[in-house]
């Protein structure tokens, strides 16, 4: 009997499943599985295992891997099983192989042959099993082995095969687009397949293709729209209905595709408006699936060229989502709001209190989603509130992944919208203090650059104020224990560059602090390196200013330690510092100009300043330098063989002559500028960071950031200026939208606010909105109401007539919302999504077997009653299937000999259905009795195993 066919399993298997099912702890489960591994290792390699038995072993292997243990000893047997003649055994073999192996496993090569053979099978189910394996196991290299056959199967008479062939091709495209680039037209062709299942599957590869290259598929807009229209008008078979929705998953996929195609394309978008509008009107908003479609519509509407009417519908749905009691709908609402505010920023305002509720909800998922929304609606007027909230949340969580994300968002917002330098510095300090080790090092470099460059406006006093406040706050923060390395690097750099600039702090004070840092974080070499360089800067600035500097004792001892450091980088820096201190003011000012980190560096690549020196040397008889490329025999210095070869073929003397110039040139650089590197004659390239300070006259001390500068220049830094404005392409419609949406607000923002609060209040009359919350709302959304006011008053007079129309519309829509609320929205969820309490009330209190006994030999009607909703929804399905299938062949010949009769697939189920399909209480009872017979009784240990999932 249908589903119960599997009960030929051995006692051993049932016992295994039973014991796993009743295991109370992971440790107990592990013990069982380890035991099982031992048994299987012994049994599986015995000769002449009947294939039924082997299938069982393989499934036991699947259990072993599923529960987290290695079953590789049995992989080969799974591979062998794919050769079997029995369809069920073969498919189980394929299943096990796809679960066990990744596409690069060595055993795959043994399966490719079998797959090739099976793709040619007369039995379409064998072909389907092979295609399943193809889409999981074939890698880039093996694609050519099966590609021709897969392409052939695209025209197979069975729709199930066509569907899987399409998906196999989709897989090839994912793996290696070039391998199937010539076959892409097949996807277009299959879009017109007669079978809705094949058409629906084709949407998956088309979605990927369109994501990569929108423009090549604009011609399909009409087709997609017409398919969607047909689906919405219920012209697909009833079998695709889900909770009375026609083919919802196909609708959603189509809406996703339309969103891509209509993005920034007015012409294409215009073709979609009608059908999307239809969905908004028709869609059942009381079911989850209806809301899923509505959400997808909002995504689509906010992606395509804006249409005021659709935007209005979208806004209505969003407000319903946000007002719902279901957290899931609130979540979708917040997400949808985040999409829509890009086009019509004013809609955020009516939902301010709902948004704040979500922000303060204990549910982390909802909270994060709301932060995402706030991130999208940040502007200069509300940046402080938003970023402060984000930072508070960032400090409160432990999840490093999300901490990193929210930290970088804080940085981004602060850089774009900071209202003042002080606030900016303080914000950055907080971010670095609490998430310093998580943020990208680029953020630190960027901060240093910002402090050095100022805001791009030629306001020197503001710049120096920024620097002073940075220095001050850093000196303060240094008192804290355990700061992140990245933050310390920034602090050291800023203190070195600007610590003494404003004269508030003495050089010795700063030097003392820097020495403390180097000492406190003595195992962080990068921080130490930054500290030493900062020390050098402070010293040189002092010397350049004509003040006498005595090295502090702690600085002295630090230097002594570093001069002997194992790190050559630290050593070099220490030596450099030592050398620079001994120089006179003029030389020092040349090497280390004050506040010149942002000056352009002119690198004299020709080293022309050495010309005199070289001339002199040549006159004294030195060999002229020959560029490396012109040297023969020196190309492979490391390759001693070729060197030997050259030595043999040329004069021995030449070798030495060529060798010399290199060190000479390099050691000659310093005298032109300084003697310092002579102490450490190391090739420059080994020290990309900061080491060139001693050699290049015009110095920037942040090589890292200056490299990054190139990238960062593209990023707009909008300091203190309000920059939030809708995209220009949409501004037209935004204004018109405002006039429509803003009508009720023409009397000014206050009325708008009070109205939204009223509706909010009417929903929860007993809940009083705390003044704190109101304040928060005002600070978050206040900015938008101001701009709203301006825009709205502009249209006050001219639009007064439409004002009336719109007003009459408003109460209606709010009534709609109200009436939508009255029917039990939650009901379908409650019925099916049975939580624990309901289940426990039915199952343990009443013996499930007793319950079933009464049902033996009852009619189908009784079963329909028993299964309530599911059965009720099912019966029309079946009827529809009968009425829709055009012709029918004999079931068995149609299925087992598809070569003889190639009937459309829907027919095959006709005869088998009444017997094997649908929940049959008799079957269930038999099954349970059988289980009981096998010794698997609902023990007190785990009665849950027997609970109906659907209740």
């Amino acid at each position: 009997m249908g589903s119960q066919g599997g009960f030929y399993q051995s006692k051993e298997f049932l016992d295994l499943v039973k014991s796993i099912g009743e295991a109370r702890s992971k440790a107990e489960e592990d013990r069982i599985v380890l035991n099982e591994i031992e048994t299987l290792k012994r049994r599986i390699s015995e000769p002449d295992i009947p294939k039924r038995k082997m299938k069982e072993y393989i499934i036991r292997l699947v259990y072993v891997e599923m529960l987290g243990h290695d079953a590789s000893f049995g992989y080969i047997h799974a591979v062998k099983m794919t050769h079997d003649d029995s369809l069920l055994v073969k498919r189980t073999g394929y299943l096990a192989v796809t679960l066990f192996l990744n596409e690069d496993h060595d055993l795959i090569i043994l399966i490719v042959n079998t797959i090739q053979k099976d793709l040619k099978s007369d039995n379409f189910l064998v072909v389907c099993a092979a295609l399943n394996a193809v889409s999981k196991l074939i890698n880039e290299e093996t694609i050519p082995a099966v590609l021709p056959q897969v392409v052939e199967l695209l025209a197979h008479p069975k729709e199930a095969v066509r569907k899987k062939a399409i998906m196999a091709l989709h897989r090839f495209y994912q793996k290696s687009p070039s391998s199937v680039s010539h076959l892409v037209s097949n996807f277009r062709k299959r879009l017109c397949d007669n079978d809705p299942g094949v058409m629906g599957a084709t949407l998956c590869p088309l979605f990927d293709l369109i994501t990569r290259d929108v423009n090549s598929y604009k011609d399909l807009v009409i087709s997609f729209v017409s398919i969607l229209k047909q689906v919405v008008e219920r012209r697909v078979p009833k079998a695709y209905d889900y909770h009375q929705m026609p083919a919802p998953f196909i609708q959603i996929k189509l809406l996703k595709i339309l969103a891509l195609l209509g993005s920034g394309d007015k012409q294409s978008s215009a073709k979609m408006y009608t059908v999307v509008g239809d969905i908004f009107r028709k869609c059942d908003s009381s079911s989850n699936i209806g809301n899923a479609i509505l959400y997808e519509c909002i995504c689509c509407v906010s992606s395509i060229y804006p249409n005021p009417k659709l935007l209005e519908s979208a806004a209505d749905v969003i407000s319903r989502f946000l007002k719902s009691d279901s957290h899931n709908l609130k979540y979708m609402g917040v997400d949808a709001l985040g999409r829509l505010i890009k086009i019509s920023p004013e809609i955020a305002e009516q939902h301010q209190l709902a948004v704040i509720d979500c922000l303060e909800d204990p549910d982390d998922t909802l909270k994060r989603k709301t932060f995402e929304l706030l991130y999208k609606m940040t502007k200069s007027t509300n940046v402080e509130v938003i970023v402060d909230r984000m930072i508070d949340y960032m400090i409160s969580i432990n999840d490093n992944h999300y901490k990193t994300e929210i930290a970088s968002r804080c940085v981004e917002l602060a850089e774009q919208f900071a209202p003042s330098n002080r606030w900016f510095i303080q914000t950055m300090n907080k971010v670095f203090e609490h998430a310093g080790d998580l943020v990208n090092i680029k953020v630190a470099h960027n901060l240093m650059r910002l402090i050095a460059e100022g805001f791009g406006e030629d306001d020197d006093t503001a710049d120096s104020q920024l620097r002073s406040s940075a220095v001050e706050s850093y000196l303060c923060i240094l008192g804290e224990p355990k700061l992140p390395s990245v933050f310390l690097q920034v602090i050291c750099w800023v203190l070195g560059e600007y610590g003494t600039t404003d004269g508030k702090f003495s050089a010795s004070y700063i030097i003392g602090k820097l020495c403390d840092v180097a000492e406190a974080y003595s195992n962080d070499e990068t921080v130490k390196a930054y500290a030493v360089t900062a020390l050098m800067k402070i010293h040189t600035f002092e010397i350049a200013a004509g003040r006498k500097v005595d090295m502090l004792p702690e600085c002295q001892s630090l230097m002594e330690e570093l001069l002997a450091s194992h790190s050559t980088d630290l050593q070099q820096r220490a030596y450099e510092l030592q050398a620079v201190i001994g120089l006179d003011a003029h030389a020092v000012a040349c090497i280390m100009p004050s506040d010149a980190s942002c000056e352009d560096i002119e690198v004299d690549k020709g080293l022309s300043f050495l010309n005199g020196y070289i001339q002199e040397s040549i006159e004294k008889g030195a060999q002229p330098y020959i560029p490396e490329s012109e040297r023969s025999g020196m190309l492979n210095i490391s390759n001693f063989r070729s060197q030997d070869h050259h030595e043999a073929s040329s004069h021995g003397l030449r070798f030495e002559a060529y060798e010399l110039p290199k060190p000479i040139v390099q050691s000659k650089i310093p005298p032109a500028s300084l003697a310092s590197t002579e102490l450490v004659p190391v090739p420059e390239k080994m020290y990309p960071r900061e080491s060139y300070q001693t050699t290049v006259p015009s110095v920037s001390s942040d090589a890292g950031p200056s490299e990054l500068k190139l990238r960062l220049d593209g990023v707009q830094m909008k300091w203190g200026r309000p920059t939030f404005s809708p995209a220009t392409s949409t501004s037209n419609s935004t204004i018109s939208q405002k006039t429509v949406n803003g009508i009720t607000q023409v009397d000014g923002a206050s009325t708008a606010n009070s109205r939204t609060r009223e509706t909010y209040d009417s929903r929860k009359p007993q809940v009083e909105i705390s003044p704190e919350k109101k304040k928060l709302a005002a600070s978050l959304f206040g900015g938008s109401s101001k701009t709203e006011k301006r825009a709205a008053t502009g249209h006050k007079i001219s639009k007064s007539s439409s004002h009336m129309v719109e007003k009459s519309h408003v109460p209606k829509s709010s009534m709609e919302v109200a009436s939508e609320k009255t029917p039990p929205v939650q009901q379908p969820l409650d019925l099916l999504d049975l939580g624990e309490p309901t289940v426990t009330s039915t199952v343990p209190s009443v013996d499930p077997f007793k319950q079933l006994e009464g049902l033996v030999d009852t009619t189908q009607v009784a079963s329909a009653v028993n299964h309530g909703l599911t059965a009720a929804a099912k019966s029309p399905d079946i009827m529809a299937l009968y009425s829709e299938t055009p012709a029918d062949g004999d079931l068995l010949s149609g299925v087992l000999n598809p070569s003889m009769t190639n009937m459309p697939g829907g027919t095959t189920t006709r005869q088998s259905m009444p017997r094997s399909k649908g929940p049959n209480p008799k079957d269930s009872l038999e099954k349970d009795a059988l289980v009981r017979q096998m010794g698997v009784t609902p023990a007190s240990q785990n009665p849950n195993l027997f609970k109906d999932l659907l209740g």
Partner: protein
Amino acid sequence: MGIRFILMVNKQGQTRLAQYYEWLTLEERRALEGEIVRKCLARNEQQCSFVEHRNYKIVYRRYASLFFLVGVDNDENELAILEFIHLLVETMDRHFGNVCELDIMFHLEKAHFMLEEMVMNGSIVETSKANILTPIQLMDKSS
């Protein structure tokens, strides 16, 4: 690619079915399952059925003692995935009749076959219960 994995896990955190649409090693699967199951079990019924975890979102739904967890990409429609889970359960219910945890345990391969019909390459390809179950019924008959 949409769906990254589908898991069925019971209240005790024991895996009952696992299907991955991207390759993870045994250790990675073990770690991932442990982390997300802990996360989901800690949530109450009023909270969202969605949880963010690393780069994916987990959409989960509970039926009696069994949790269905689907890991999806960030741009997936969560509500639709939630209903996809329900469709899967309804389909299993139609096949097994009053499906319970033990049905899935005894017929692990069948539950997998159903998923193979419904999802390929991480995309939902079939949602008609008849189309999903026909191959499985035919297979039962022929064997």
